[in-house]
């Protein structure tokens, strides 16, 4: 898929995904060793984007499996098409009669029927779900198993066979093995610890917040309309804010959102008023917003209402905010 580590970087770069050497090394190894990659890191540092860009760079299909609590094999792997099975049984009733005609007694009929049994549990009646799709793809695809930490532990255990051998066992059919093993990217926000067994099977990649140069590059790539000066100022501010003890530090996603809102407001510079007005783009909690404003010396005349009744901060609301963000915004 890729020639060298440099090649990975370059081709990811063509997909407007800025990568460092570490990331490129891991991706390169993953394609060479046919090993899944487990990407961990805070929300909005480009975990999902990595899979998308990788699919783009390799020119292969991206198959996505979003994990959630209660996800099971029927939704991740395969499901029998019961309706179709039923229909076939009805339609083929006569044919079955024909098949069984020459048999002399019941015993023989059963024998004959048993010989035909696998007709009804064949791949014709399987509904392919993402994992089976990835296994049966004609070319090796990129399979993104997003936010694996949201799924149950049972599901994790179920993935083990697939991740180590790229095969799944379907009780009625047998084992299906991938001819072109997919590149598997698993992402996790670390809302819980994944099992050792799963981690052992994966290459591990820790994504963190980028340094100033890289972030600047990302901003320029993704929000080209922004002026040089402003982007530099913006990135500097964001980098500074990450050193504060915030409940949710602004990630690259927030940087880009901010950059874009500044473009929309056609702001020439980052003034104090502007920061105050747009604070809700980068701070997702009241307390964070206050801290940021105090830190930047803007002062807090009154509390900004971000829609929370009481800043208890006890409920995990990041997820909610994730959803609220514009769908077009980059979760980079």
């Amino acid at each position: 898929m890729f020639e060298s580590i440099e090649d990975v970087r370059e081709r990811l770069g063509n997909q407007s995904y800025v990568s460092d050497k570490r990331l490129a090394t891991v991706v390169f190894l993953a394609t060479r060793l046919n090993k899944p990659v487990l990407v961990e890191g805070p929300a909005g540092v480009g975990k999902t984007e990595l899979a998308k860009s990788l699919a783009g760079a390799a020119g292969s299909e991206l198959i996505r499996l979003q994990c959630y609590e209660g996800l099971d094999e029927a939704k991740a792997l395969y499901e029998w098409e019961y309706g179709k099975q039923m229909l076939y049984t009805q339609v083929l009733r006569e044919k079955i009669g024909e098949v069984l005609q020459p048999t002399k007694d019941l015993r023989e009929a059963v024998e004959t029927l048993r010989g035909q049994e696998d007709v009804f549990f064949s791949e014709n009646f399987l509904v392919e779900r993402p994992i089976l799709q990835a296994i049966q793809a004609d070319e090796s695809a990129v399979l993104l198993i997003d936010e694996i930490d949201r799924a149950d532990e049972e599901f994790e255990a179920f993935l083990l066979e697939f991740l180590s051998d790229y095969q799944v066992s379907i009780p009625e059919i047998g084992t299906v093995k991938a001819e072109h093993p997919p590149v598997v990217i698993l992402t996790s926000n670390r809302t819980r610890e994944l099992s050792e067994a799963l981690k052992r099977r994966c290459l591990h990649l820790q994504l963190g917040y980028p340094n100033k140069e890289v972030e600047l590059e990302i901003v320029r790539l993704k929000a080209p309309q922004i002026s040089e000066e402003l982007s530099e100022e913006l990135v500097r501010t964001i980098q500074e804010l990450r050193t504060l003890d915030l409940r949710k530090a602004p990630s690259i996603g927030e940087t880009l959102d901010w950059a874009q809102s500044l473009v929309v407001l056609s702001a020439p510079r980052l003034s104090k008023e502007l920061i105050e007005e747009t604070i809700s783009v980068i701070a997702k909690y009241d307390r964070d917003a206050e801290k940021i404003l105090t830190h930047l010396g803007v002062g807090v005349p009154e509390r900004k209402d971000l829609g929370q009744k009481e800043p208890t901060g006890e409920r995990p609301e990041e997820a909610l905010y994730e959803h609220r963000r514009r769908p077009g915004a980059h979760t980079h």
Partner: protein
Amino acid sequence: MDAVINDFVQVLRSHQLRVSPAESIDALLALKQVGLGERGMVRDTLRATLIKNQEDTETFDRLFDLYFSLRPHTEKPAVKLKLPDHDHDHGPPPDRLELGEDAEGEAPEEGHSHDEGESADMRRFFDKEQMRPSQNIHGENEKMRLSMFSQELILNRKPGAMESALQRLTYHMKLRRSRNMFNPGGLVPDTGGEEIPLDVSAVDLEELVDHLHDMEVDEALIEQLEAQAENIIKGLPELIKQMQEREKKLEKSAKDDSEMRHRSLRKILDFSATEQREMEAAIRRIARRIYGAKTRRLRQDRIGRISVPHTLRHNIRYEGVPFDPVLRRKREGRPRVALLCDVSLSTRNLARFWLHMVYQMQSLFSKVRTFVFVAEMAEVTQLFEEHTMNRAVDEIFSGRVLDADVNSDFGKAAEQFRNEHLSTVNHRTTVVILGDGRNNGKYPNAEALEEIAQHARQVIWITPEPKWGWNLGSCDMPLYEQICNRVEVVRTVDQLAGVAEELVKIRA
């Protein structure tokens, strides 16, 4: 190369990083792909294949630097390493260290046997003696425990070691003391002698010295230890006096009691965002353990909704006529939790931590009933649900809920719980008790706890005191321990996370 990597993996393992054989094979395969041309790349490769936990990354980086700290290769590769004897020398690793292959990049094949020689030499840096905790390569282990301390005494008879161990011990104690000094709720003048929230009291130290006499330790060491202990004991009254004075000062500066309480409250609630996040995560992990695997999957059941796919599949045997509907419903293996939290003076300095934990638990579990006790017991579930953290805690310490200023008496509290609330406990209830089990010599009333335990699914006791402290002073923990399913020692977020980790590991 194989030998070097294997050796490196050994080093990682000896530092409590879990590296499986499969992973080290992966590492080798990966290195064959990327080559050894670049140091950074080799590091990234090894890190991606060997290290799967974020927490371990730092250790890995440190060890990688230490292990592969090489000068650029300038001399002949075949030179054997001549290392000074380091068995009695804990100085920094020598800077002259060569690993033919890695420094050279594309290494010639000839170096195989010589590799092994080298790695054997390498091993000397990392042999068991050198890797012992508390020596320079490890650098951590700042947490001294008395049991470890006595172990070290016996194992390590070097004169210097004893000194340094004791120093660390006293240092550790000082830290504890000063922390208490700044915590106004921690010590009240009139009960000061009895209720010092120190982990090691004078009596304990004396007992420790007696214990050491029983063990076969050099007399000289014991004398040294005694002298040290004496110092500590001598220092105690003064310290108490200091603390009391401080207390008085505080009282003077804040005559109003409510003002005082608010000040202490601010301390209690002063949780940084990071701490809060860690706490949340840790409790989630514990939550999972207590729940059993938390799941929302549908399960087959006698009642529930008809599941079409399952019914069809099940009834194919009847030519698809749905004789036998399959019902599924959500069933959550979710036991109830009853939290009993000691808010007496002896644990007041931990209240900040505990009440936070309780508050978090209540927001995470659906059926939590929270009780606080000192000598009597009161339910505060409602309080936590209706008010914010600050208000609730304020309310509890205000004395309106219960008299918070008497000596703690778990026996009495357990009795009251048995009489009034036992009906809330059933086979799905996990009872979590937060307390130090110090009854101030009152009747421990283990029967009451036993009866509670019989009704509950499990009893988990979380205590701030390490186990060695239990049989010192008037602590009834040994008695309670037999009844509880688990006893965990927790006094910081870190430890809570550790306990959560362990619980999860046991499950896996």
